[in-house]
């Protein structure tokens, strides 16, 4: 005998899901059994704890024998299953769950488990981990209501629950809803009028197409994505200084505006840098994962925060595209879902090989023209430089491999501020520092000219970590070669030998290595952190003669301290010399000269183009690959097993890598594939959530077994499959279909009966009614006040901010608001400078996150601080004044006409007589009070009616209807 499943005990849910009651069918593992296991068992017998060596995450383990030696589950035989015996036991020492952990299982759940074991204890994958399928739209009784298949799925569920859909929304209300939903702005009065005189179906479709084509569309949807991308114009932790990254925001707006297919949109952000012949736009898109927080506070460990950023990239990727909280797995196997501990670190390997390392300069940075029309030109120049650098590097690596290096014998090493000693390692003499090191030390290395050298054509400097075996996964502090110079000592004395070039061991060093010749600039070095031995080759101006009996002396000036504390001093290093002719000729080689000229010319051309920068993802040279290790209990300093190869969890379809070394591009394509069971579902749900206020899966952040199940699973799956197939991942097509549905177009009013039956509007028997988002609250008020200025893109703006709020840690970080009337004062919210530690107050009050981490869902609050903001915040006061001007000067007719126009401007509705009479009596009272009190009036406006209109304007902007869509 089957009983209602777990959820149906709930009085609300009993009403909500009677359709799921089916008294004869086979027990479904994911639907019915997994929730029981998650609720009662997996806390002790799951992915984290396997008490008694029993776990219910995987079938094979559940069918095994625990420490007791008895089979936990015997398929087909509940009476032989230890699980049932323990659940049914009356012995307090035996019964499960243990009395101190929870009450015994209800009979209904025991029956479900028994039936499931009798039926063979089949395991099922969690619904969202299996591929979605298209479902035929169900038959409905009220055949004249549906406009498309969305409606048929929705109506079938309504009818099964004896509910009827609501009538269509008032047309003005509908246009307001669609306009705010799609472009984040209310319709103008002209747009409303034009729409209202044409009641045809085509008129609505035309309005939707107009909205989808508007350049404002991208601004609205970028805001949504920026929460997921944790977009901010500051670096986050520690000092939270400014970080120039707004080109990513502009890319995002543009991507939504041109309806970039969601799969490509995904690939560009995750791995745009690895796409062959990537465009500048694709490289900018990778800033998505450079939006992780950085810490440039003095004394902080760059590796600690590099690792934190890598972990954040892993978690964010899962949260944004897969709707799965992967973060748990950092410390242990997933407590509910079949994702294993080692899989987290295999996945981490995808992100562990990029060059960025929490550096103060935010490098690597991409140079981007301010004017995006010049993107391809700049991309070409950037690529010219890179390809020439690559070629130079290849040439030099080849020469290096043919070079015979001579190591010193009898080297003396003396440091001025840091003590040195010479030690032999693998037969080679090295210098080592003794005790603590001091910044700006100079090392003097002196050694007899090695036999049989008579000329020196190149010098090799190597910086080693003290322990290369651990450094490859847990790097040591790095070193900079601030300055190098050398002398030859012979019978005539000491003579300094001029040097010409410092050649790095990588194609694209972050800083110019030649700066080490002059001591001006950072020069060559491992900078910040070192994962393994590194070297540079130093060429003299001309080959240096080495007379018999001479000695060579090399001076290595070490770097200063970074982060106010860490001296960039090499604790271990080597030096070698050569007489190879190839190096002697190298700088004059015509090919080398020509490559260097190409680089220089391209750089000069770039200098003439106004540019900004954006931090981007860029892989490290494979020669310097880091070793990715598991962290024991998630602690980055406690390293476990090494990861052999990047990979995705086994529970999902296989990764199809292009080579035997899977990379981020393989990963991005795996995510953006129709075969991935989660990507399209999660995306469709997210867009649905924006339009209806609740997702089809009400927990958009968790599609795993701890999240809620979809209210309309067939609808979600059908839309997901269609999104990735016939809609070709077009977000605009998806949104269009939703907003054209009868479901979306319903009236939003709710009767007490319906409110009781379906408080959360899960059944969609009425239209959505949502409070404006934080961004919309600002944009809407600016639009209603006639102040809004539309200009696409550009550096962040600084609108008015209440006094006393802007107190950045760095005193020179200024909030400069353009003066009244200046256009940049009235730009849309999406352009407002976003500082994580001092977020714009009105956004916070209206539930925007601080964006330190990926934010999957905004919880909508309703607080007194919101009231104070719209009533009193100077920016909103300015909007009230604007609305007063719209009424007083912008509207023809008597006071009633002006008040009606003001009301309509902010609510999109035509005023009713009772409302008008309320506003009129308020206006009259205010006007006479201001007339009687000119001093108070003067603080507000020049005339009593102006002051009265301003207060009325403020009332209108604070209306529930004005704050709602």
């Amino acid at each position, binding site marked *: 005998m089957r009983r209602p499943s777990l959820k149906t*005990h709930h*009085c*609300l849910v009993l009403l909500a899901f009677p359709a799921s009651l089916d008294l004869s069918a086979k027990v479904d593992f994911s639907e019915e059994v997994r929730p029981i296991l998650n609720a*009662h068992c997996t806390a002790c017998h799951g992915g984290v704890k396997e008490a008694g060596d029993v776990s219910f995450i995987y079938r094979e383990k559940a069918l095994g024998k625990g420490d007791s030696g008895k089979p936990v589950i015997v398929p087909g035989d509940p009476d032989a299953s230890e699980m049932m015996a323990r659940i049914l036991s009356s012995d307090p020492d035996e019964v499960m769950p243990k009395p*101190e952990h*929870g009450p015994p299982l209800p009979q209904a759940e025991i029956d479900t488990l028994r039936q499931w074991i009798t039926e063979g204890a089949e395991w099922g994958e969690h619904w969202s981990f299996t591929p979605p399928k298209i479902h035929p739209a169900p038959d409905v009784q009220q055949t004249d209501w549906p406009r498309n298949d969305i409606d048929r799925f929705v109506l079938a569920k309504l009818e099964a629950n004896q509910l009827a859909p609501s009538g269509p929304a008032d047309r003005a209300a509908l246009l307001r809803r669609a306009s705010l939903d799609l472009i984040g702005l209310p319709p103008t009065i002209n747009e409303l009028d034009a729409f209202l005189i044409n009641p045809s179906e085509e008129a609505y479709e035309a309005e939707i197409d107009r909205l989808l084509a508007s350049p404002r569309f991208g601004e609205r949807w970028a805001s949504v994505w920026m929460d997921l991308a944790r977009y901010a114009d500051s670096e986050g932790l520690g000092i939270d200084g400014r970080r120039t990254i707004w080109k990513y925001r502009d890319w995002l707006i543009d991507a939504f505006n041109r309806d970039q297919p969601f799969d490509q949109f995904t690939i560009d952000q995750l791995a745009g840098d690895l796409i062959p012949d990537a465009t500048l736009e694709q490289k900018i898109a990778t800033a998505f994962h450079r939006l992780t927080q950085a*810490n440039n*506070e003095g*004394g*902080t460990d760059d590796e600690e925060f590099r690792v934190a950023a890598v972990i954040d990239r892993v978690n964010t990727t899962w949260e944004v595209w897969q709707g799965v909280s992967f*973060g*748990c797995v950092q410390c242990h196997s997933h407590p509910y879902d079949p994702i294993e501990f080692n899989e987290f670190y295999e996945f981490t390997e995808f992100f562990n090989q990029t060059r960025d390392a929490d550096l103060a300069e935010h490098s690597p940075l991409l140079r981007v023209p301010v004017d995006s029309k010049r993107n391809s030109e700049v991309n070409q120049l950037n690529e010219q430089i890179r390809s020439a650098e690559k070629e130079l590097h290849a040439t030099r690596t080849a020469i290096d491999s043919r070079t015979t290096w001579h190591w010193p014998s009898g080297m003396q090493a003396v440091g001025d*501020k840091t003590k040195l000693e010479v030690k032999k390692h693998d037969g080679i003499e090295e210098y080592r520092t003794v005790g*603590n090191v*001091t910044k700006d030390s100079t090392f003097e290395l002196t050694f007899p000219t090695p036999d049989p050298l008579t000329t020196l054509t190149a010098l090799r400097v190597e910086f080693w970590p003290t322990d290369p075996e651990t450094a490859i996964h847990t790097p040591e502090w790095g070193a900079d070669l601030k300055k190098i110079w050398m002398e030859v000592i012979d019978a005539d004395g000491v003579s300094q030998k001029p040097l010409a070039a410092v050649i790095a061991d990588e194609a694209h060093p972050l800083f110019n290595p030649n700066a080490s010749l002059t001591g001006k600039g950072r020069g060559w070095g491992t900078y910040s952190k070192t994962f393994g031995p590194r070297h540079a080759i130093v060429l003299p101006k001309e080959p240096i003669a080495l007379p018999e009996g001479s000695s060579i002396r090399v001076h290595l000036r070490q770097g200063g301290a970074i982060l*106010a504390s860490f001296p960039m001093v090499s604790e271990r290093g080597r030096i070698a010399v050569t007489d190879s002719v190839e190096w002697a000729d190298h700088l004059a080689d015509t090919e080398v000269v020509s490559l260097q000229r190409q680089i220089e010319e391209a750089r000069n051309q770039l200098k003439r183009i106004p540019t900004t920068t954006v931090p981007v993802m860029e892989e490290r040279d494979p020669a310097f690959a880091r070793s990715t290790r598991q962290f024991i209990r998630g602690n980055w300093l406690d390293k476990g097993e090494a990861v052999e190869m990047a990979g995705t969890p086994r529970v999902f379809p296989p990764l199809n890598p292009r080579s035997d070394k899977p990379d981020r591009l393989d990963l991005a394509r795996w995510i953006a594939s129709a075969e991935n069971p989660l990507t399209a579902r999660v995306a469709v749900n997210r867009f649905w959530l924006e339009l209806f206020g*609740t997702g089809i899966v*009400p927990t958009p*952040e*968790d599609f795993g077994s701890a*999240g809620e199940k979809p209210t309309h699973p067939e609808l979600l799956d059908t839309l997901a499959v269609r999104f990735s197939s016939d809609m070709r991942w077009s977000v605009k097509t998806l949104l269009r279909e939703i907003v054209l549905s009868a479901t979306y177009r319903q009236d*939003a*009013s709710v*009767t*007490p009966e319906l409110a009781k039956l379906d*408080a*959360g509007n899960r059944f969609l028997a009425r239209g959505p*009614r949502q409070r404006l988002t934080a961004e919309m609250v600002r944009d809407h008020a600016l639009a209603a006040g006639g102040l809004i200025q539309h200009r696409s893109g550009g550096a962040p703006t600084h609108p008015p901010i209440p*006094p*006393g709020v802007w107190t950045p840690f760095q005193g020179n970080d200024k909030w400069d608001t353009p003066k009244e009337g200046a256009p940049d004062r009235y730009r849309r919210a999406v352009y407002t400078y976003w500082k994580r*530690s001092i*977020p714009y*107050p009105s956004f916070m009050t209206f539930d925007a996150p601080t964006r330190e981490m990926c934010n999957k869902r905004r*919880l*909508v*609050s*309703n607080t*007194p*601080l*919101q*009231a*104070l*903001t719209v009533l*009193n*915040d100077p920016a909103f006061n300015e909007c009230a004044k604007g609305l007063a001007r719209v009424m007083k000067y912008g509207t023809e007719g008597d006071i009633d006409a002006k008040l009606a126009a003001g009301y309509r401007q902010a609510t999109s509705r035509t005023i009713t007589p009772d409302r008008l009479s*309320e*506003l009129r009596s*308020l206006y009259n*009272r*205010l006007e006479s009070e201001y007339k009687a009190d000119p001093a*108070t*009036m003067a603080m*507000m406006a020049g005339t009593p009616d102006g*002051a009265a209109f*301003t*207060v009325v304007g*403020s*009332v209108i902007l604070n*209306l*529930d209807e004005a704050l709602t869509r």
Partner: protein
Amino acid sequence: MNLLQHLRAEDLKHLTRRHFLRDCTTGLGGMWLVSQAMGSVASTPVHDPSSPLASLPPTFAPKAKRVIYLHMVGAPSQLELFDYKPTLAKYDGKDCPAEFLEGQRFAFIQGTPKILGPQFDFSQHGQSGAWISDRFPRLGAHADKLCIIKSMQTDQFNHGPAQLLVHTGNQNLGYPSMGSWATWGLGTDNQNLPGFMVLISGGRVPRVGASLWGSGFLPSVYQGVQCRSTGDPVLNAANPPGVTRDIRRAALDSLQKLNRRTLDDFGDPETLTRISQYEMAFRMQISVPEVMSIKEEPAHIHEMYGTRPGKESFANNCLLARRLAENGVRFIQLFDWGWDSHGSNKGEAINHGFKNKCDAVDRPISALLTDLEQRGMLDETLVVWGGEFGRTPMQENRGGGSGNAFVGRDHNPNAFTLWMAGAGVKPGISYGETDEMGYNVVSNPVQVRDFHATLLHLLGFDAKKLSFPFQGLDQKLIGVKPAKVVKDILA
């Protein structure tokens, strides 16, 4: 999770739970009682959504009705204040013994550091004989009220993460602060004021800013409201120029009438909430500036605290803390910036800036304790004082040179001092000991999470059970590691 927890968790996840709560109160109330009766379930407070800050009873009888938390931002040196180490004086100026350096990471120390002896004189105070330095002469007179924990430990040694750990139980951003947990659990006694208020002094905001009093994944109504000492005490509390209280009332009357019409049209319960929140806002416009104005306090009170109206100061904030406590605010959090004594400049060096900071806080803290006691509030108010970590017995030696004119110490997560006074804690005791150098804890270590468990216990909650479902986990202030209530310090 059992069924009841599950239902509750489900419910709380729904933004629209309020409808359900209103219409099914008996059902849910019943569940609440049942769940209270069962030992092992998580406790998840359920609020009436139309007044989310209304007072709720804790799980068991609380010792503390409210908390005043004094955080010295930057981590004051315990070795100059409470943790008296005569041995340290003997080693003063000598090279640090090697065993202290092995395997340690320091934030700033370079070279072989020298030991720095206590820079100020210590003496014993009160019947308890607590050692307190001459930097805190007035506080010394309160020694028999203090419960001094000398064995605090953290695992973070940079300011931002360490402050987050102390205030939210997690070194990452995005977790609810202690005050949010307390207000969520208990609501507050005065519906005209926020339940959790924050006051700042020292000229700077802690670096991680509002995250230290954020509500994380708890509903935003439980976040701390930062009041400022200059300008509006609460952002946008003042009407725009030209709007008098009467005009605002008239405007609000119209607004509320129109909103009631909208409620008739759409039946949206959010509209009803909005109407009530606009009224709360109107009350706060008066109540917040009123409670935040110290001008009317009598002269002897100003004299006792050392307050000067209109100035941003820790003293003003201490007096404000007492006023907020009197007015039923649940959690009052003070941050005082400027305690990071590395010895890198005069402003923060132990022999300069630190001395002045001590002078500036000794009097108001003592006044606060006296004032609370005289008003009969100390036995129901828990006062906490501390930093985010401790400081090293070694002198910091920036740049590796010697003979610094400014004396400083580096960060030490291994041992620091925190004291409590008032509701529910044993007065006049010291708990825990550090080694003879004051570098490591040798007896009765107290982790930050143990402190959190103790704090919640005093407020009437089992920290293992006060939880909020988020991201598939029952999230708790104490996190996932085992935490214990420090029973030995409970009165």
